[in-house]
């Protein structure tokens, strides 16, 4: 991001007269938004990149990936064009929390409607090998996207007024606890993990 753009962008982004006064804070604040833009864009591109393969595997997941990609790129654009109102930031936080939640769930259980696996990409046919749907594997690329999204959520949190932020972080904590409970349930109900 160029510095003159930052200068122009400055009043709109801050949205809070008291916080804009001191120059060092402005710099920090600006960097936060810039990094958030990059992260939202990176996550959006990662999902866009993965959309075609997901579409071929399971159309519903392809649609989900496309929607996520649009939403994350939209968030990047919104931040780029200085839309940092609490509403926009909250939408950014919760949409990414939703993505993270679906990701965690998909690695613990087979999602409702998820197709099973045919042998080596062969079409499903009577008598042929077919495994029921199973939790997806964990790979480097999806872990990278996950970390980017978590980083993005943290950055977006810093843009919120402190009271709102406190409420949001409490909700996040309950989400984290829910993840753990869900994991325990999934392992107990699946028995041996395939």
């Amino acid at each position, binding site marked *: 991001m160029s510095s003159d753009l930052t200068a122009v962008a400055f009043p709109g982004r801050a949205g809070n007269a008291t*916080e804009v006064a001191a120059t060092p804070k402005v710099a920090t*604040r600006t960097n936060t938004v810039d990094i958030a833009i990059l992260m939202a864009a990176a996550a959006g591109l990662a999902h866009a990149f993965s959309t075609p393969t997901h579409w071929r595997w399971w159309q519903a997941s392809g649609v989900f990936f496309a929607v996520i990609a649009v939403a994350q790129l939209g968030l990047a654009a919104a931040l780029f064009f200085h839309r940092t109102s609490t509403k926009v930031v909250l939408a950014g936080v919760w949409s990414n*929390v939703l993505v*993270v939640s679906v*990701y*965690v769930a998909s*690695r*613990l259980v087979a999602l409702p409607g998820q197709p099973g*696996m*045919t*042998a*080596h*990409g*062969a079409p499903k*046919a*009577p*008598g*042929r*090998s*077919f*495994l*029921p749907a199973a*939790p997806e*594997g*964990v*790979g480097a690329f*999806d*872990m990278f996207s*996950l*970390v980017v999204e*978590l980083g993005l*959520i*943290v950055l977006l*949190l*810093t*843009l919120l007024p*402190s009271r709102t*932020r*406190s409420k949001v*972080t*409490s909700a*996040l*904590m309950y*989400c*984290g*606890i829910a*993840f*753990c409970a869900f*994991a325990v349930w999934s392992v107990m109900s699946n*028995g*041996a*993990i*395939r």
Partner: protein
Amino acid sequence: MSLSRRDVIKTGVFAGAAVALPAAKLAGVGAAGATPFPEALLPKPFTRPFSTPPVAVPYRKDATCDYYKMSMQAVDAEMIPGYKTTLFGYNGSVPGPTIQATQGRQVVVRHMNALPAQHPILGYTPWTSVHLHGSASLPQYDGYASDVTMPVGGTREDGSVCTDGEYKDYHYPNHQQARTLWYHDHGVHHTAENAYHGLAGMYTMYDAEERALPLPQGKYDVPLIIGDAMFQAPFTDAAGVKRAPLLFSLDNQSGHWGNVIWVNGTPWPLMKVEPRKYRFRVLVATISRSFKFNFKASTGVAVPYQVIATDGGLMPAPMTISSHRQLGGERYEIVIDFSKFAGKTVDMLNTSPTNNIDYTNTNKVMRFQVGTVVTDTRNNTVPTTLTRKRDIMNLTEAMVAKDATGKPIVRTLRLERSNGQWTVNGTTWEKIVASNYEFVECTPLMGTVEKWIIQNNSGGWFHPLHIHLVDFKVLRRNGRPPMAHEMGPKDVVYTGENETIELLVRFDSAGKYMVHCHNLVHEDHDMMTQFEVLEADGTKCFDDPMTSAMAKDMALEALDVL
């Protein structure tokens, strides 16, 4: 604005859970490259006692023929000590019992499909078709992929259900010369699954010429059937039995590689040998893995060995080598002289060729513990000339038949991946099925010799190319002479990355036969086509692989005298 300490902690719970749960899974099980069954629970290499498969006992004999009954059935085996693994075996044995045949004496095997209606994990119907690999059997007894024998309650490809189950009698002529053959499943679309679960066994054929040679015989003539396996995470079933089911990956389209190397069904066995010569019949029965074998003594020296026979039997002369590569379907008979290693050990090792997936101990195969006493000194010699009677090895390019324009007949088989499928010249088995088994790649005439060129233009994978019915001679590999160990009659050729192989093939009987990749995952999806040898006068063979000897209803088996 920075986060308060409290915010950091609360957010940390969320982020920590989100990262830790998938990461724990990554560290534990299920991901590509991981081995769900803990390696620490596998037997240590070279600790399990070596054994050989049982020798099959004929059900009945008459003046010209031995009759066998084989029931293909699920069996709880203990490949990993302390854990039961459900496998599929011929007469409950994995590998199957060794059938011993003599040239000139026929064999009939009644193969009865007593497998479950569905594989308990993979969900497929284990229909079968048994191929005797290395035999010039009639088309209807060659294990034609689509000529299947159904289990009770199994679902056919058309969706119908087989109520009684089926059996089929396979007739083997045994008119060929001595060789190491093997029988294995060839059922369409899940040959890989069936063979991986144990449907494979050795079939040795002897003849007078080979028996008269002073080569190691009897207990010094030993089958080494080599495979690989991967196991799922262990669990205890409702009956309190500890289980480790086989893991078969459905997602890797290149093939299936295991982290356990087994010989005759035992992981990395230890074999006690005497300090003398042994003859080993090495059969690689893997789904996808290829090997580059070598032998190393505990003294640190490399142990050279002699190759005396290839897929089609004796080589003209033994070849002394220090390593050789071998892939699925290939057989090499090798002689190792342990006389210099009394009281020492000799390890059979594997420096894996490129494009395999390797794990901690896939560089090891088995160990020989050499004793100090020789109990029998007879048949302890490898003659410098083994045979002059293998016509195939006397073939020359000048003998290649000419077409109508007077040009030598040369056929090219391109092994390639196109549109997400494995193909031979762009053809898959689907095309043969769609043509009602009429489509053929080419129609050689019986009694003629042709030059076949096998092409692999990819650097990404190797293919074991198997031509049914025939023995062939490897003429050139990438324009150069074949490797030393390939200088004998062959029926599978290692078609490595970016390799072009020239073969001389002679067609000694007529009918439709398959030609395919012996990476069984490639074969199943769907790197297989067929050729049809016409009678010398150009007419079609009367015997048809699909209709001349169909599988019969199991309800009739007791009435059908074998």
